[in-house]
């Protein structure tokens, strides 16, 4: 954990300034920090309850889940709820996981790359009309994403994209917001790198490919992580585009648990666990990038 957000609060104290020596204040601080910890522990517990309930239910049998007698833990761990998910031919859960994976794994790098390319050009390559291009890209941010779902559907539908993988992926590859973030990132990029590259005879594209991209990995990782999360969790678009269960994403498969004629509760919860597991792991492993991505996209807006 080396993110700036972890920086301990050991600020340099101006010379000659001492902590106020009053005992009451000291006691207040101690009490305050005990209370802070208490509150934090309590809130963290509340925050984690849904995860606990989910796991508990996913490993129980239906009678255990619906029993009115509260049980903290399952009597036995019913892992078959998880295997059962994958052998129901009517709901191709494995396939939907695969689809979500493909979508997220394609979207994250490609969308980030496109944004980085455009961001770099807009920041560093001065050509006539650059302001117009920037305005065109920023302009799409004025209209909220969710409102364009219908028009986009109309266009993708008329191009035959309903029910296809490209129809699911393509509209998500163009993130104007990421362009803006990349642009401001490249604006503050040291010019020496490019100059050195140009002196060595690299073309503009060569500079971008050989020098700029390798120097933007942190930025790419952060925004790529966010893009991956968005792609994995998106619901409305795949809901409209995917008819055949073979083109369902995991979110759609999940929602079909609720509307199908018979509800298998433990399997429903097991499905939810599987659906959120990849991102939970990602949050635990790549938290630094995610936190940075969030902080960046929030503060630059």
């Amino acid at each position, binding site marked *: 954990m080396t993110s700036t957000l972890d920086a301990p609060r050991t600020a340099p104290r101006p010379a000659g300034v001492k902590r106020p020596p009053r005992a009451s204040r000291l006691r207040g601080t101690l009490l305050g920090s005990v209370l802070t910890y208490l509150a934090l522990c309590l809130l963290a517990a509340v925050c984690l309850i849904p995860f606990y309930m989910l796991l508990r239910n996913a490993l129980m049998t239906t009678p255990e889940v619906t029993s009115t007698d509260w049980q903290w833990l399952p009597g036995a761990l019913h892992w078959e709820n998880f295997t059962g998910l994958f052998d129901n031919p009517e709901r191709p859960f494995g396939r939907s996981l695969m689809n979500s994976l493909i979508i997220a794994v394609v979207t994250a*790098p490609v969308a980030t790359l496109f944004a980085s390319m455009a961001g770099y050009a807009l920041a560093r390559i001065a050509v006539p009309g650059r302001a117009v291009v920037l305005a065109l890209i920023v302009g799409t941010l004025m209209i909220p994403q969710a409102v364009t779902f219908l028009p986009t559907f109309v266009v993708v539908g008329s191009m035959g994209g309903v029910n296809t993988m490209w129809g699911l992926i393509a509209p998500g590859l163009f993130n104007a917001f990421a362009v803006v973030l990349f642009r401001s990132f490249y604006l503050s990029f040291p010019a020496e790198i490019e100059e050195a590259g140009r002196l060595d005879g690299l073309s503009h594209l060569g500079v971008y490919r050989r020098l700029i991209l390798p120097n933007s990995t942190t930025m790419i990782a952060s925004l790529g992580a966010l893009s991956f999360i968005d792609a994995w969790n998106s619901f409305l678009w795949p809901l409209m585009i995917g008819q055949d269960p073979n083109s369902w994403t995991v979110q759609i498969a999940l929602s079909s648990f609720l509307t199908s004629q018979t509800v298998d509760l433990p399997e429903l919860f097991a499905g939810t666990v599987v659906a959120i597991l990849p991102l939970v792991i990602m949050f635990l492993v790549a938290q630094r990038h995610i936190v940075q991505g969030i902080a960046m996209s929030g503060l630059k807006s």
Partner: protein
Amino acid sequence: MTARSALSRRGFLGTSMLFVAGSVVACSSDPQGTAAANGADVTLTQWYHQYGEEGTQAAVKRYAAEFTEAHPGIAINVVWGADVSQYETKLNAALLGDDAPDIFELGDFRAEMARKGQLEPLDDVYGAAKSGFNKADLDYLTVDGKLYAIKTMDDIMVLYYRKSLLKKAGVTPPSTFAELTDAAKKLTSDGTKGLFIGNDGIGDSPYLLAWSEGVDLIDGDKVVYADAARSIGGLRDLHADKSVLLGFTTDWYDPGAFNQGAAAMQWCGLWALPAVEKELGDDFGVLPWPAYDKKGRAVARLGGWSQAIHARSKHVAEAKKYLEWLWVKQTDLQIDWAVKYGFHVPAQTEVAAKTPEFGKGAAKEAARISTEHGKSFPAEWTQAMQAGFIAAAAAVAKGAAPARTLDKAQAKAQADLDKQTV
């Protein structure tokens, strides 16, 4: 450091290229395109919604294979689709594009689809067999004198009741709405509610109430359901007693609440009968929705699924051949489809009469209810009308003034209807 970052950059680009390639492969192995199977000249794409019953998917694929065996030039690519709640939405979306299916299932039949030229007329598919089909279904699927779909099964919805619980509470099977309310109240005890009509406490009841008062939804070119303000107003009494089960895990179309004893009476479909029988033996009976009062009539909703052909399909003739082969001629397969997986009534009256499962007990009673009390939505009914109607009824259940609320919704529905018919 340098080597590593160059590597990671190459890795990054390489990975993205790999996955772009992968997605292209994924696109080309798209379900719509797969079944250019074993040398058939024509491949028809057929959409089904997702049936809940085990074995249904295998069954329709088997029927398709049998057809191809008999007609080697024509292969059928069965697309097993979304569940009921999303199927129509997605079908509609697909019909806009170029990848539209040739043949598809329809749940609620929409006359507007025929009028907008999305459906192929099927009179020649029925041919002489037409007279053998359930008359109510034929009327339902006829728009401006032409038949646009063929019913593959009839689903009748009925009121299931637990005989033993009614006996214990000292009530008889209700024959009027007042009796139903009263029974629901008396049957409500610790852990059991009297009646389950849906997790939202509304379900199909607004339709049933209107029909049971003798009021239809649409009469000619007028929406008229507001005339049923009196009966729909009854929802408030039903809810005021807190005798209606709300927010169960499964919804009304699943017999779970009834089987587990969470409700003593439940509005559900005939499809649930085998499951109920297995769980409760003969401790249950079925009823139509009771008449609103002595002047009204008992009703039951007649649903089911039909097959239709896309008018813009390139293979209309082959599609017709398939529908005729399966749903007109193959009576064995029709019976198999109706009773081997779930429990539905075959659409051809004669075939239904030949089905042994409808010869006895509650099933026989349900079949009787189907012919005597069955009622379908009007073909002009749309999802918007349904949403407006149900919302109005939900408001009434909450305490809104019935006549005014329904009038408002009706005016909106009328505008919808006018738009359809111009």
